[in-house]
């Protein structure tokens, strides 16, 4: 269970998160939507301790992330994070990219790590690309590799930070299909996304971020069909009319 309790986060004088609270239960898929700069991505970076916070606290399975003495490296094993810019390690092959963390962080043997990595890569449809370097892959394939790389650690939670935003439109669906696979496996996920149709389809709950606060949170039917807040309705109207144009 991930419990976010009234967290505050600033970059210098800019307050990005102004007291955000939410709880994500085991097996739940929560989508986070909202405009750029609303604090969605920053919240993800706070959850696995990549960013410090200035107030509140975050508990992951009861461990306070930002407490002194919390072993962040250990905590991060349980939390997979996939970025907008997939961030492949360009000097390693697809297989090596995926093996690295199981080997170095979990201390698996070469053979074990290889098996785990190969299995995850097959799972995301990259079984024939094991010995290829990331630069030879399309954006969608690199992003799927990044997902397999995170999954190879057998995390309990997966965080997705706008994983389709940097992709060419025709590559978006293959990555979303991979995310659907994870939903079907019952993975607990927080998905920051601009893909409204996808959010509606897979989410148990949807959170709408606005100016560093959760403006509205609820089941997808509520958010998309009968939003309780005028800001939510305005945002969705703007986003949906935009996607019709393109």
């Amino acid at each position, binding site marked *: 269970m991930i419990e976010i309790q009234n967290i505050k986060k600033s970059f210098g004088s800019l307050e990005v998160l102004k007291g955000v609270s939410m709880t994500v239960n085991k097996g739940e898929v929560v989508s986070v939507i909202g405009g750029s700069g609303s604090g969605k991505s920053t919240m993800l970076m706070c959850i696995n301790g*990549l960013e410090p916070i200035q107030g509140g606290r975050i508990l992951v399975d009861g461990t306070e992330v930002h407490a002194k003495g919390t072993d962040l*490296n250990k905590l*991060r094993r349980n939390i997979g994070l996939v*970025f907008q*810019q997939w961030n492949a*390690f*360009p000097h390693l092959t697809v297989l090596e990219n995926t093996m690295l963390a199981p080997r170095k962080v979990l201390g698996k043997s070469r053979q074990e790590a290889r098996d785990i990595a190969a299995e995850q890569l097959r799972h995301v449809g990259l079984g024939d690309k094991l010995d290829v370097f990331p*630069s*030879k892959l399309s954006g969608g394939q690199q992003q799927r590799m990044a997902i397999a790389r995170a999954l190879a650690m057998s995390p309990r939670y997966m965080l997705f930070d706008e994983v389709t935003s940097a992709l060419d439109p025709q590559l978006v669906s293959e990555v979303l299909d991979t995310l659907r696979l994870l939903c079907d496996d019952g993975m607990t996920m927080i998905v920051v996304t601009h893909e409204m149709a996808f959010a509606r389809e897979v989410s148990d709950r949807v959170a709408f971020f606005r100016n560093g606060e959760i403006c509205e949170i609820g089941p997808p039917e509520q958010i998309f069909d009968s939003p309780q807040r005028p800001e939510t309705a305005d945002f969705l109207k703007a986003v949906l009319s935009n996607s019709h144009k393109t």
Partner: protein
Amino acid sequence: MFDTLMSWNDLLFMLKGAGITLAITFWAMLGGTLLGVVFGLIRAVAPWWLNVPLGAVLDVLRSVPLLIQFILGNSLQAILGWQMTPFIIACVVLGLYTASYCTEVVRGGVLAVPATTRRAARSLGLTYRQDLTHIVFPLALRVALPSWIGLTLGVLKDSALVLWIGIVELLRSSQIIITRIQEPLFVLSVAGIIYFAMSFPIARLAARLEKRWHEND
């Protein structure tokens, strides 16, 4: 025109000098690179109170002509009575000079590794040190290698200046022969060919490494 008084023995003498040149270059590059990696890393990540003084010292080493550094180094050890051989002084002074340049090469390489890539490594649970050894160093090496090779070739030629503290390396051995047989053009051409023969394989090796790495980029 191709008659020369230079004997095979003279050539052997020059090759011995070339051996000294290579030895000084090797030790200076080894020490300079090790120090440069440490300093470069400090320059890339350390807070200002460590960074600024270190940067200032290295700036001095880069700004004072190497010839002056050799002579000062030599005099200093004589005054302090350290009993170091000129060869060791040459290696130490040239090594420090190399370190000051290598520091910037390493720093540039480390800073060229995208912060997002490092963040991805940390998000997988890699420790700070594992991130350095498995992600930052290999990637920085690719960026830094061409400059490092350039530095090596530069040091190889700069090492000629050690003749002023009494070491008979390639250039000094050529001078000795010129004084005797009075054929500067021919002897210096031979010296030039030997310098080229030492530099060329290093440059080729670098080009091959670079090509291999960039096939994957």
